[in-house]
């Protein structure tokens, strides 16, 4: 998944001036809200938290409350499932197939 990080290693889903692009498989299948609640530190780089603790990459960690991101991703996947089921139903109707 292509993501973009800013000067604080926070992730963005859209490119913008000053952002760096990375391909991070960890975010495959994740919704935008989930991705943008994370921080990605590439290998060989480090991020220093405001309390002085240093984190070397490669690291992915949430900077927004993870419960919130977890719920956003679950809702996203639920909506996808509904869309797939709806599309499947339409196909079945078109084919004259009845689900038992």
């Amino acid at each position: 998944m292509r993501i973009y990080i800013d000067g604080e290693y926070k992730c963005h889903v859209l490119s913008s001036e000053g952002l760096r692009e990375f391909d991070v498989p960890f975010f495959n299948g994740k919704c935008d809200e989930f991705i943008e609640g994370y921080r990605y530190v590439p290998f060989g780089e480090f991020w220093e938290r405001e309390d002085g603790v240093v984190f070397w990459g490669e690291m992915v960690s949430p900077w927004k409350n993870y419960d919130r991101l977890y719920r956003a991703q679950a809702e996203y996947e639920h909506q996808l499932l509904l869309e797939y089921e709806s599309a499947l139903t339409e196909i079945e109707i078109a084919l004259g197939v009845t689900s038992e």
Partner: protein
Amino acid sequence: MIINAISGGGSGAFLEVTSENSGVVTVYNNAVGKTYTKTVQAGTPVIFKGLSTGIWTVEISNNGQTAAKTVEINDDYEITMAFFAAYLNVTYPANSNCTITNADGVVVATDNNSTASTKTFVATVGAEGVYTVTASAIDGSKDKEVNVSIDADGQTKNVTLSYAMYLFKSGEGAKIDFLTYNDKDGTATITVGTDEITLYAQSSVTGFRTALRSKNTIDFAQYTALKMKCTPTAVYTNIYSSDWENSVGVTATAFTSSESTISWAARSKITASSTETTIVVDISAVGTSSTTTSSYYFGLQLGGRMTITEIWLE
């Protein structure tokens, strides 16, 4: 505070000081050995007379707030000053004392907590700089300190201190219950001993991997970092799945084998090193003291060879 230098008649100059806040004003010139002090009320100027030309320092203080300026007295001039105040929101452990010192080691705030719960208090600091916030257990058994930098008036910084929680410590062994997962073909094994945890893959053939997980969920809410002291002498490349990434961190689900696709909440990759290293994972946004929708476990997955001497949370 506004400072106006007024050229007066006779010997010396007049210095008029006006402050937006009440306080005590001290004017001194160490070169001539003179110091003058006056109490100032908000909006009411005070005048210092007979000041010789030269460099003078003007200080004002009130309830822990301070401000200082160096001025050159010769003719009329103006200087505007303001009190500096920034705030530290400090949360520290139960049954502990908390002390805040500035870069010179001067204590600027203290607080005490004799309860069985964490406590939060707000400390006001009167200058830019680096402050050390220290929590010490009342029984003297442990302490924790962090540094926080203040660089602007009105700034607020949140500081959370917690004592380390060991999951594994060399010489003491596992401090929690772990579940270990060897490779299904037995070509990679993991052993939890008293002095170290050993992960060993027979060869670099991909697919030989091991995994380690806390048996029970862990309350990560009071901790901000997961640390693991280890020597990963060999780390093999995964070609099967992006979720097997030779990593350590916090998982949102209880995986059940070395081949599980792990749902990481936060993780750092393990890379080969011939010397001991400490891997640090930011978990400051993982876990909550309120109702959670997911459970959290310590997790590790590796295709390679590594010894671990310590795993702990701070």
